[in-house]
């Protein structure tokens, strides 16, 4: 059950409405709620200089699919399809067939995403240096790393809130 009216992504996807005890507990930490949504809005803002909005959404879609976090993946995929995203690229991301995308810069970004999501300990100095080699500026590398790391946070918050709500409904 979604809370379709909320402008807060997690409330909407987890289905937290003001009547729910989990909503009430979450919103006692209003600063966290606001900065979580603020981070998502900032990282995915169409006007953020550097990486294109579509490329950023490919990255978050891939991160959610790898986690896996199906509801957030569906959310970000629906945003991609509203933009001029390449359906073949989305298909490659779903199949984790990154080499077939045919865009070396995006492939480097997604390969870095794969390592950070599945085995962060393996992303060493060489993994990072692949990004400038693929043409990313340092501010773009920061955006990419923050984006992947933020999604790692958001998917766990979603999972925890969903579990709290599940328990609340079962009692």
């Amino acid at each position, binding site marked *: 059950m979604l809370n379709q009216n909320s402008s807060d992504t997690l409330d909407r996807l987890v289905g937290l409405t003001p009547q729910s005890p989990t909503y009430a507990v979450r919103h006692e930490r209003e600063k966290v709620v606001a900065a979580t949504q*603020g981070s998502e809005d900032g990282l995915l803002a169409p006007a953020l200089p550097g990486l294109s909005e579509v490329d950023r959404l490919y990255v978050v879609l891939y991160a959610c699919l790898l986690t896996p976090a199906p509801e957030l993946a569906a959310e970000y995929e629906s945003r991609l399809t509203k933009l001029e995203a390449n359906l073949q690229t989305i298909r490659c991301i779903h199949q984790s067939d990154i080499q077939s995308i045919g865009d070396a810069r995006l492939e480097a970004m997604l390969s870095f995403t794969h390592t950070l999501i599945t085995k962060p300990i393996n992303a060493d*100095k060489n993994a990072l240096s692949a990004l400038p080699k693929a043409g990313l500026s340092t501010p773009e590398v920061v955006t990419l790393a923050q984006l992947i790391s933020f999604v790692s946070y958001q998917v766990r918050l979603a999972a925890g809130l969903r579990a709290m709500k599940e328990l609340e409904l079962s009692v």
Partner: protein
Amino acid sequence: MSAPIHIQGFTNDSLGWKAWLDVVQLAQATPAQMSVLEESHPKAKESDYYLFLVHQPEILRQRSIAFNAIMYAPGGLSRAERELASTVVSRINGCVYCASVHAQRFEQLAKRQDVIEQVFEEPNSAGTNQRERAIVEFSIELTLNPEHVNASSIQQLKDVGLQNSEILDLIHSVAIFAWANRLMLNLGEPIFPSV
């Protein structure tokens, strides 16, 4: 004063941190970058970590607000238990730098280090009592298998006495270190004190 710990490559020593790519030079920082550095951490202007992240100031600003609210806000889960969860997540993800910082904070708040030694040695069985073991176990599960966390995971926390507000703070503390570890671990490296 806490005793030095060196277990499985993890430590409670004070470590430095060095970025692998170019950081923003203070002399060239914009007013927006300066104000975010000042809001983020008392020593942000001397820290490679903040000077690197401030390449994207607005993103750093939101991250710092979330981080500080999660780790330092009054009420809810005790600050020591938040630091314990952060140390566990850092141990699981292999972030030696984050583990050292948050191990120290736990020791300062709790005035003991027994559970930190256990977390460094073997996180899966760590915890000096039922409540700690439940916190550690939940932190590991949400870190490694977020898709498996469900109502019974939350019930196990309630069974050892955690209130809803404490459980929310625990979820926040685990999740924010999924974020923090991936910056500290993947954008630079710890500097160990010279012996």
